């Protein structure tokens, strides 16, 4: 086959277009890297992209409520769930500035307590020698607010009726249940990453963090 230099020849018509495939050889492996989609995400509809992330967040919520398998929260951490939960908590818990009867926390105060509290608890466990990355721990703590948020919703519903001692007791019970659930779930996720002699030292701040937030929930009226 003889070669000829056929550059910029006017004889080349539109039919001989240049086409090719921009795929990297061997990209379609069965075991892909974590987090990297093995398909071309540029061409898919936006709904697909959006739903994929929503599904990931939803899976994490499910794993917090039924803590059996823990790798999804730790490996594929994200901060969407904590952001949604924190905004929801802060919106419901804030005391309105106009009313005389409400000395509740401001929106910013709840926000600060949740995020700075999670950061301080994480820093504490890292300073004690813990074996977890910063954002994984913040992610776990944020997602474990789910039971507390559920307790807040239930309390809000209870508050719609007239207030008696019984309703107060019901609210107290719900909040305590949410608090214990949250602490237990976070302990399952974070328990093994703490150094062995210092587990109680690392667990106590987590307990305190959820206790304070549960206190905000129960005292909201």
């Amino acid at each position, binding site marked *: 086959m003889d070669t000829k230099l056929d550059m910029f020849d006017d004889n080349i018509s539109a039919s001989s277009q240049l086409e090719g495939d921009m795929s990297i050889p061997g990209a379609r492996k069965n075991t892909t890297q974590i987090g990297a989609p093995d398909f071309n995400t540029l061409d898919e509809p936006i709904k697909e992209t959006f739903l994929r992330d929503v599904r990931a967040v939803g899976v994490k919520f499910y794993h917090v409520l039924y803590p059996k398998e823990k790798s999804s929260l730790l490996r594929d951490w994200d901060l969407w769930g904590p952001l949604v939960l924190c905004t929801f908590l802060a919106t419901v818990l804030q*005391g309105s500035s106009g009313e005389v009867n409400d000395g509740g926390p401001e929106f910013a105060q709840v926000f600060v307590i949740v995020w700075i509290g999670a950061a301080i608890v994480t820093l504490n466990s890292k300073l*004690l020698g813990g074996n977890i990355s910063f954002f994984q721990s913040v992610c776990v703590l944020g997602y474990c607010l789910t039971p507390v948020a559920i307790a807040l919703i239930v309390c809000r519903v209870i508050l719609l009726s007239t207030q008696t001692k019984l309703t107060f007791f019901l609210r107290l019970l719900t909040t305590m249940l949410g608090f214990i659930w949250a602490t237990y779930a976070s302990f399952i996720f974070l328990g093994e990453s703490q150094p062995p002699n210092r587990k*109680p030292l690392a667990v106590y701040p987590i307990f305190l963090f959820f206790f304070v937030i549960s206190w905000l929930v129960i005292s909201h009226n």
Partner: protein
Amino acid sequence: MQSAGTDDLLQFRDYNSTPSTSSPPAQINVNSPTHSGGSGSGNNALNELIYDMSNSAGILSGSNAAGDGGNINTSATTAGSGADGGGAGAGNKVSFLTFEYYQQFFNVDTSVVLERIVNAVVPMRASKNYLRFDIGENPDLYGPFWITVTLIFSIAIGGNIASYLQHADDNYQWRYNFHLVSYAATSIFIYANFVPILFWALFKYTLKPVTDEEPVESANYTPSLLSLMCLYGYSLFVYIPFSVLWLIQISIVQWVFVIISFCLSGLSMMHVLTPATRNSKISQLLIFGILLSQSLLAVCFMFYFFHMPNSPVSTATESAAIEEVIKTAKLVVTPPVVAGNIAPANGTR
């Protein structure tokens, strides 16, 4: 360097021991339960925790078994919460811009923390050399930081419950006061930080000059700033159970609790600090100052957060008189900033 021969390669080499004798020797803790694999359910982790806590509670007089610093994740460059230590480190010359620098202030195990808490509450329990050789060698910031945070929240929550109980009989629509958290936080952090600084300066600058009559080895010893902060932080622990007990709305009982808490914390602190005050020129004044600051803290807690006014007239005069005493005493002992902080807070009551 010796030439490399096979004899050399087969010999054991001596490594130089670390020059810093102040850091605790490295230990491998063979008692810790082994971790189960990744398939371990939550039960294993829970059992480990229970085992650990019962273990540490049983070893209250445990030695200073500090494990090694653990896995250091150097990608984190944020300053740790132990940053307010500032001064003397534990002998390792690490830059304060690294994460490891702050890890040395958290080098404590559960048993050590529990031991320090009990020493701060039970008055004569600590040994004579406690300040110098126990806290002085390994001052930690874990205890002070988390005890102050717990105390802030327990005082704020207790104050809210107390005000609810005080108005339980009226038809008063109870108002939840979140600002108590801010007031409690301000006053407790000022106490836990500025009072140790003040005493550290007093210790340091009123040191008795060393005479040749009795050359005592510890004559020049003044406690480091970190040791004092550690000590003050742990001494605050006694107020946490009392913040629950102060909810009882009987005035006599509240005063009794003030006296008990002051006695416990004041006596234990005095017992620990007395060896260090002997080196100072104004030792009597220092001891008095220590006791005074503890008592003021107890009284202020009780009054501002928990006290129920019995009747308007008697408590007005009583509280006004106490305010005067507190104000003058505060100007003597603590910086005027504190009086400025407490006074407007009382005005909103």
